């Protein structure tokens, strides 16, 4: 039953208005507040808002009419009454401007047999902070049936390989990705002709019989047609964020200087970023960063363009995978933002190594105890004594966050790059448990089966180059941690002991630390304590 909507009071003293424009017609969906007409009241123009929600049944006024307060303007089939609810008209009626006819038509009136529907399966969120993946391998092809949990593809995220699983049952009708593609969250991976359990097809039987298939009905427009519709006016920003509020000239300057405009606060009205703001930001970064080696590049300047090396000799190019790229970005940030100091020491591990070898030999059925596993336990002991080394620094708020847990990251060199899996709660595990877990994580790392959560939450990192050689090196702190321990190859040295020459096995240790969190004396105390515990290793138990 249609309800009448009458002209409400427009303004004080106004008893009638002249209709200038009628903005709705029968069949339109209106809400409370939808403007249904424009009217002239003596001197001004007023918009008349609808007080009802529903579908316009009749329009009883037209432009030029003079109408009095209380006159019926339109009748509305109110939503919620017996008339079928009309879905919000706009989204259904208007395909997205840029979309091809095919895309616009595909999602809704499924051109598939009853009981199925076409679903574009898009890349779901893979892990926190991961916005893009590289497709390593596609596991399905057109015609395959899939069910919930079927692996669609293997993908590389910054640090790990993830398997993307289908969330639908059905048959693959199109594959939109190939190995090597970079895909963002929300991008189409495959189209699935999905089985819908039970109910009848939800699609309105309206238009478009089989628009996706080009052959039959002559009326169907070919898929490749771009709708002349209306030219698309909007450009989206690269990553879907709202554009930074800055004019083209400012944006260009920011690109030139390598400035991320989202980091710059704008001084103009409403936070708009001016050229001066960009200059001030760069100036601020140059002067506030710690004096370091006189280099001008403090992470804000774009890297210098590379020369054409082929002028000098033959070259070959290799694309850096995501692991390398992520590591490169993290290492630069760490190097630029953390004032590093590296403290070296030699730990006498003669007896420890002998005991370790003996134990390993006699217990071949137990997990193999490595020097790294022992070092994890030794580090936990030293961290308990020097809690500041097991912390993170919040420079913004001027706080040091001391951690009551001992999660140790272990850098693992793999053919695909450096990864750092984490062994959790090392204080609650004995050295055998640690050793077992270490072996397991190393295998996972080499097979690229580590999950992002396997690599999160470390409070201290160990990197062991002893298997390769070298004496000392200066590892880079893995933020937000404040210290990292580097192990090199143990070497035999001759020492004088009570006037006698003895052979000792010495392990070179290098601990880099964030000087803002740890002062030099504490770092030295830490490494001395650590070395001592390896020599007098009963402290470890």
């Amino acid at each position: 039953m249609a309800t009448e909507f009458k002209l409400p009071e427009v303004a004080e003293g106004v008893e009638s208005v002249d209709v200038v424009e009628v903005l709705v017609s029968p069949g339109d969906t209106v809400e409370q507040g939808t403007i249904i007409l424009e009217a002239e009241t003596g001197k001004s123009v007023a918009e008349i808002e609808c007080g009802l929600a529903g579908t316009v049944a009749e329009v009883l006024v037209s432009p030029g009419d003079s109408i009095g307060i209380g006159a019926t303007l339109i009748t509305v089939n109110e939503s919620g009454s017996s008339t079928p609810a009309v879905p919000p008209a706009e989204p259904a009626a208007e395909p997205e401007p840029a979309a091809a006819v095919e895309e616009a038509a595909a999602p809704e009136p499924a051109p598939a047999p009853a009981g199925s529907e076409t679903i574009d399966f898009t890349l779901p969120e893979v892990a926190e902070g991961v916005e893009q993946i590289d497709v390593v391998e596609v596991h399905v092809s057109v015609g395959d049936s899939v069910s919930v949990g079927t692996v669609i593809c293997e993908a590389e995220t910054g640090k790990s390989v993830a398997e993307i699983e289908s969330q639908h049952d059905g048959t693959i009708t199109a594959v939109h990705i190939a190995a090597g593609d970079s895909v963002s969250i929300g991008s189409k991976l495959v189209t699935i002709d999905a089985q819908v359990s039970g109910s009848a097809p939800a699609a309105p039987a309206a238009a478009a019989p089989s628009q996706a298939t080009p052959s039959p009905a002559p009326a169907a427009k070919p898929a490749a047609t771009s709708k002349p519709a209306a030219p698309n006016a909007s450009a989206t920003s690269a990553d879907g964020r709202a554009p930074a509020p800055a004019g083209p000239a400012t944006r260009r300057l920011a690109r030139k200087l390598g400035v991320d405009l989202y980091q710059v606060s704008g001084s103009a009205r409403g936070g708009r970023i001016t050229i001066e703001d960009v200059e001030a930001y760069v100036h601020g970064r140059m002067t506030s960063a710690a004096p370091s080696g006189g280099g001008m590049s403090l992470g804000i300047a774009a890297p210098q363009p590379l020369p054409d090396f082929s002028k000098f000799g033959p070259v070959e190019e290799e694309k850096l995978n995501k692991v390398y790229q992520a590591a490169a970005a993290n290492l630069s940030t760490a190097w630029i933002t953390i004032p590093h100091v590296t403290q070296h020491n030699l730990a006498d591990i003669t007896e420890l190594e002998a005991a370790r070898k003996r134990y390993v030999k006699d217990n071949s059925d137990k997990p193999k105890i490595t020097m790294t596993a022992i070092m994890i336990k030794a580090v936990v002991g030293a961290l308990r004594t020097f809690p500041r080394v097991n912390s993170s620094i919040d420079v913004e708020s001027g706080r040091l966050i001391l951690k009551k847990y001992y999660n140790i990251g272990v850098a693992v060199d793999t053919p695909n790059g450096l990864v750092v899996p984490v062994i959790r709660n090392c204080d609650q595990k004995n050295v055998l448990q640690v050793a077992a877990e270490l072996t397991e994580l190393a295998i996972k790392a080499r097979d690229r089966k580590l999950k992002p959560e396997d690599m999160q939450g470390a409070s201290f990192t160990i990197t062991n180059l002893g298997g390769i050689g070298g004496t000392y090196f200066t590892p880079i702190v893995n933020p937000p941690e404040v210290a990292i321990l580097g192990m090199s190859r143990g070497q035999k040295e001759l020492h004088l002991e009570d006037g006698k020459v003895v052979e000792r096995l010495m392990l070179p240790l290098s601990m880099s630390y964030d000087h803002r969190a740890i002062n030099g004396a504490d770092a030295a105390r830490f490494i001395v304590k650590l070395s001592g515990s390896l020599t007098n290793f009963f402290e470890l138990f």
Partner: protein
Amino acid sequence: MKHAQLVVLGGGPGGYPAAFAAADHGMNVVLVDEGKQPGGVCLNRGCIPSKALLHVAKLINESRESAEWGVTFQPPEIDIDKLRDFKNGVVGNLCGGIEGLCKQRGVELIKARGTFVDSTTLELRSADGQTSQLTFDHCIVAIGSIPTMPGFFDIGDDRVMDSTGALELKDVPSRLLVVGGGYIGLEMGSVYAALGSEVTVVEMSAGILPGADRDLVNPLKKVLTEHFSAIHTNTKVAGLKATDEGIVASLEGDGVDPEMTFDRVLISIGRRPNSANCGLENTSVELDERGFIKIDRNQRTADPKLLAIGDIAGEPMLAHKATREAKIAVETLLGEPAEFDNIAIPAVVFTDPELAWCGITENEAKAQGIEYQAVRFPWAASGRAQTLARTEGVTKLIVEPRHQRVLGVGIVGPGAGEMIAEAVIAVEMGATARDLADSIHAHPTLSETVMEAAESVIGQPTHFYRRKRG
């Protein structure tokens, strides 16, 4: 064999600006275009000739409307040959101008069709069938788009035309069917309606200009409903048949005659990239599923020697987008920090009233879940609009509520296409509603509606009072 540092393939509004910019930066440039005269679709068969005709159409309509203001003209006498000459003259002037500018800048213009032999070689075939080869360090591919003409419409009868045919203005058909209610169909439909044709528009979707804001489309639809004999939405053309009587169209839709006869039919259902038959398969360029060349934000393709700009490089297929991309492509070659980071690409529909918008539309904001505030300022409250007796216009702003930054602007009304320039600057510069409201706009002009719309964001505009709710 001839060699150039840079070859620009295609002389349209993407290609010739690219060639000019590169030459201005000291590059050795050859511009290859297959047309009789450079300028591409835009100058020869698109924007320019259609606007010449739309100008005349507006004049004819106004000469009728003026009767209401006490000035009555005789019905116009239309000399179709002279009108065609005017249009061709405009095109000739502009295209000739481009040839002149090529000479002044030292850009060599070769009139030939170029086909890629490999990533650094083009085979050139001139109109007289002569072929030669041209090698290059880099090539900017600007080969544009062509009207979509599905096979079942292409019945081999020249009474069925695409936009190119419609612009040739062979005659004024008494009954014209326009298939496709997009901007091309509505613009050409308007021209023929003013010249005296009975125009019927058939659109497959639920409304004309799908994708455009309904607040803007509705006033246009009202005017077009008066000028056209019918606009059938949700209607499909199932087939066309050539008879002596005319072209018989089978129509499928509610309340539409299933068969109607027309003297001419304009197919304007879209344009598609011109990527076939030009040897792109001999390069490492990658195409998307619709045939557009895939590019990055620097206009680079998957082939390190080739860049692509304009319609061939993706939506929106608009001349001014191509021209901007041309500059970026050249700067990319020069190692400058250019990037297609534009936020607002204006779209203009040159009907009467004109529709223009830029930045985000209300529907896009809704779909993307962006918080926004939309305000409309009706032109009935504009003094200038009243003096023109054109009060149907609306100026609409989409702003971000926190800073009231202008995210999008839509305008319908005479002159909207010119007015949108201010909006583009506002969106691109990150202007706020107050920036627009506090800038002085000349009185009495239609541009004041932008200022007053901005005032509605902040409070109340001067010439319009919106009752406060509650």
